[in-house]
């Protein structure tokens, strides 16, 4: 009995540790995105938790007449400037000189439990803004900077992602049904092509496809990205949906055929409604894939800033404001909101899709 308890403690303990390890990076980002920018650059995000630190409790400003080149008596302590500057500890308090010899004061600090919990939405407002944005800081000053225009990036991401999810699914569903239930010569050969294309790295097709788009003057438009994502997503979509649709019971189709229904009718009236779970699984898969994609957007949407999606905006921010963590954290978290919502609300379908989609042939 005792070993069982120990065992469970060991299992749950190590599991908790791993989960903590896995979650901390994202958690730190989330916390930081709400912190004041001065706090972000001066203290770690973990300072929002209660911790012990030296806190200033009193400022003693010596009169201008006090001679700073001989021992001074301040706050009941007599010491030289050099000693004060190095810091003196007495009765659990720290006396330290701030500033230079002529202009400065003695700071009395106590070691206390504190937590930095000034949170703000200014970081988010700035990354969403287009044009300049004047952020109000906790210390009362303001900071004017170029906004990162993540708001329009969000809209562009939606515009890219929704069609790039629906179009391949529509095409693939028809194809999957065709390969599974419509008899025609060369069916197996053509489906083998789909299976073969499953693992093709998209880099091999990227450049000629880009040349196609340039020739059609489509480079930089949403259209180009949809077509690219449709092409790159089709093999997996067709393969997944084929696996599902080909497993549907044969009697369903035979009964319908006897009744004189065409393939088109069978597909739209029977197969599509029956395939909703598989369609949903792939839809989530493709949605997350496209939303999170960077390379395809980078190549086909390019530098034209007005059509850039969230991942591009975020990557640009890393390039030009790599140390401005108040912007990076807020922008990064903003770009994750939609996938996280999709993920948490539809996790079951997503997992099902993963299980079906792992390329085992």
């Amino acid at each position: 009995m005792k070993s069982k308890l120990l065992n469970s403690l060991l299992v749950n303990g190590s599991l908790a540790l791993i989960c903590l390890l896995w979650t901390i990076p994202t958690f730190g980002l989330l916390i930081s995105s709400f912190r004041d920018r001065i706090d972000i650059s001066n203290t770690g995000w973990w300072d929002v938790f209660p911790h012990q630190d030296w806190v200033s409790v009193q400022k003693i400003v010596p009169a201008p007449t006090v001679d700073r080149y001989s021992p001074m008596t301040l706050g009941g302590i007599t010491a030289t400037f050099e000693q004060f500057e190095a810091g003196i500890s007495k009765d659990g308090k720290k006396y330290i000189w701030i500033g230079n010899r002529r202009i400065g004061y003695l700071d009395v600090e106590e070691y206390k439990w504190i937590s930095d919990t000034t949170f703000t939405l200014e970081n988010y407002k700035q990354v969403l803004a287009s044009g300049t944005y004047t952020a109000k800081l906790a210390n009362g000053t303001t900071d004017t900077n170029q906004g990162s225009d993540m708001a329009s990036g969000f809209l562009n991401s939606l515009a890219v992602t929704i069609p790039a999810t629906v179009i391949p699914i529509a095409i693939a569903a028809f194809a999957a049904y065709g390969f599974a239930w419509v008899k025609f010569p060369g069916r197996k050969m053509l489906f083998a092509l789909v299976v073969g294309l499953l693992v093709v790295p998209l880099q091999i097709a990227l450049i000629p496809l880009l040349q196609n788009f340039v020739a059609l003057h489509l480079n930089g438009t949403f259209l180009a990205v949809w077509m690219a994502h449709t092409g790159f997503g089709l093999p997996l979509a067709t393969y997944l949906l084929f696996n599902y649709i080909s497993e549907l019971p044969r009697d369903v189709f035979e009964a319908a055929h006897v009744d004189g229904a065409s393939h088109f009718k069978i597909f739209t009236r029977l197969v599509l409604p029956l395939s909703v779970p598989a369609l949903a699984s792939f839809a989530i898969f493709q949605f997350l894939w496209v939303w999170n994609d960077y390379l395809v957007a980078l190549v086909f949407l390019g530098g034209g800033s007005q059509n850039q999606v969230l991942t591009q905006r975020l990557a640009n921010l890393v390039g030009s404001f790599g140390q401005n963590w108040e912007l990076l954290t807020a922008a990064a978290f903003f770009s994750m909101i939609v996938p996280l919502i999709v993920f948490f609300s539809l996790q079951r379908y997503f997992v099902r899709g993963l299980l079906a989609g792992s390329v085992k042939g």
Partner: protein
Amino acid sequence: MTASNSKRATGLGIIRILISFVPLILTILLLVWGMFFIRSEQASKTPLPQTVIVAIALIWGVGGIVLLFFTGNIVIEQLPEKSARRAEPILFVGPALLMLTWALVIPTIRTLIASFYDQISKNFVGWKNYIYVFTNPNMLEVFRNNLLWLIFGTVFTVIAGLLIAVLADRSKFESPAKSMIFLPMAISFVGAGVIWNFVYALRPVDAPQIGLLNAIYVGLFHGQAQGWTTSYQPWNNFFLIVVEVWLQTGFAMVLFSAAIKGIPAEILEAARVDGANEIQVFFSIMLPTIAGTIITVSTTIVIFTLKIFDVVWVMTGGNFGSSVIGTEFYRQYFTYNQNGIGSAIAVVLFITVIPVMVYNLRQFARREAL
């Protein structure tokens, strides 16, 4: 129309067939018009509000494809029985095959050809690009890095995924724990790059460290703050690989978890009754049973890792000796305008996945034969 009607295919029948093409042709015209419209709107100096373009684009893109299938079917319904049988497969698999050919097959062939031509794809240069790719010291470093990614990225991910799956299987908190591990899968590699750049953040030595890793390193181990992704090459690659492991472990865990649950409980119970301890059960029963899944997971991660781009590009830009095939491909093509070398790199990438491709096709052929 039914077969009896089509047998008496008269002039009227032919006209009906011709008329049935009208919706399809209209749809195609609508699609082409939409393409021009979106193209010109996105290029114009004074475009419509972005929201309006997006709305139109959405309706056009999604509606157009559905309309295409429906109007195509109208034509088929008017065709005589025999022609309809022949046309049906075209309606179903035609668009997909067309798209695959246009977006993947032909481009692959063109890249293959371009890899034997010079940087502007004008003059034939034979194997020159490949010789560069396999002898240039910079390229060799790229291959070394990719190898590090392949080996350690895959091994760490598989081990972590397996460990978590086994632990979660025996815990009461299985579902929340798995969600937490799985969560990074919803995050983009760019986002993950930012998250981990923040963990690795380096401030000047005398300033307080705001990056978690440096804060721990300085605070607990009294080390000196490091640029984890920039110094100590090639070890910096491992700090990038961590990001991939963090992101992909959820995937491995889900598949392993399902496989472990698929092991019949009696077998595990029997082994335990016979006195095997948990570690023996794991190594002599679980591992062999889920070997197939381990291979599947490893293959998927290997293929994914081969093309890794975003995370390196965002975190180091491929500098500091951290370039991989994906970033080098991009750099050769877009930064140096080396069309031929870029293509050759893509072809090398393609060749490395051919064994997996062949394996998949074999499996498919075997299943079809059953």
